[in-house]
């Protein structure tokens, strides 16, 4: 009976990811990804291919036209979820490696590192005050690229959200709406209208504040969230894998 259970488990375990492969974005079929994402994917793919073939790549040349947006913070955040129990060095190592492959030379890497450590602290149950205090303000103030600006805004909202997640959300939505009323660029007509860039501040805040306050924004009834069971299962797997594969 033990053998049966073990083989069933292995069957599910190995077929599960192949099912997951085919879903990712519900309208990925419908809309074309933003050009920054495309470029980043291209770079990543090239790095992997070159790596497999043993060819060195000149990253500077490749990435001179790559514009790193603040969405890098979100894209790299899974490192915090999975490696929250590992050492900080381990996280840094992976972060540096992956960001190099996807973004080439990345000057704001330090900010991403800080953000990931904040998430990890939040998962450990540290208080907001502790997390805010541990940020090196000098380091951040000296930068003025877009990613750092978003980060500074994020910290500001977090600090003044009266410990209520809804308060922070309201404030950010007002900021976004004000910003959107000024933007009139011509965009490709077939981009996903849910633009990660314009809502980045909100995404970051939601991700971080939910972890710190350990709650969801109140208005939403949890079972009705899209993909609720799938996400729950995914997080369980993340939890399980990270516990059993400690480095």
């Amino acid at each position, binding site marked *: 009976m033990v053998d049966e259970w073990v083989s069933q488990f292995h069957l599910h375990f190995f077929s599960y990811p192949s*099912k997951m*492969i*085919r*879903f*990712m*974005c*519900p*309208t*990925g*079929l*419908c809309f074309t990804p*933003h050009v920054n*994402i495309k470029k980043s*994917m291209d770079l*990543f793919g090239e790095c992997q*291919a070159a790596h497999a073939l043993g060819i060195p790549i000149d990253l500077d040349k490749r990435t001179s036209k790559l514009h790193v947006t603040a*969405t890098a913070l*979100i*894209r790299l955040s*899974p490192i915090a*979820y999975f490696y929250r129990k590992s050492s900080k060095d381990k996280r840094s190592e*992976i972060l540096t*490696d992956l960001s190099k*492959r996807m973004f080439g030379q990345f000057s704001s890497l330090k900010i991403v590192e800080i953000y990931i450590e904040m998430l990890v602290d*939040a*998962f*450990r*149950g540290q208080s907001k005050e502790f997390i805010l205090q541990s940020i090196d303000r000098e380091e951040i103030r000296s930068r003025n690229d877009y990613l750092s600006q978003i980060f500074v805004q994020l910290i500001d909202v977090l600090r003044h959200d009266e410990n209520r997640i809804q308060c922070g*959300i309201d404030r950010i*939505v007002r900021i976004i709406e004000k910003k959107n009323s000024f933007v009139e660029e011509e965009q490709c007509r*077939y981009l*996903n*209208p*849910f*633009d*990660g860039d314009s*809502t980045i501040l909100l*995404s970051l805040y*939601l991700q971080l504040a*939910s*972890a710190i306050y*350990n709650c*969801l*924004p109140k208005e*939403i009834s949890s079972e009705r969230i*899209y993909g*609720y*069971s*799938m*996400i*729950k299962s*995914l*997080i*369980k*797997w*993340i*939890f*399980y*894998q990270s516990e059993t*594969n400690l480095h």
Partner: protein
Amino acid sequence: MEFDHDGLIELNVRPDQMSIVDPPINLDESNEEFSRLFNSILSLSLTETFVDHSNLDEYLIEHIQMERIYSEQNDLKLIWSDEICLVFCFLASLAHQGDYHPDHLIQRYFQWWMNG
């Protein structure tokens, strides 16, 4: 990268219709750490629900309708932004591999890009 096109053309399984297989561990919201991780990701996926999209252009709605009809998939929904999808790709790769494997990750990203 070579793709097995026959495999890709199969009916895609949407996130809200996937059959769930849990790992061999007992976990629910009472585990505080799990709860934090879970709430964090759930909230992230809700980003777009807070932003006012009532002024979506007509052509976008039509575009989605057409896509639904032509690919015969009536359950296409517009819920997540691209970056959030990439987050899920990364998480899925980590969950599958038990570790960071850039090769596996790039495959996931490509499959998202090609396939939704």
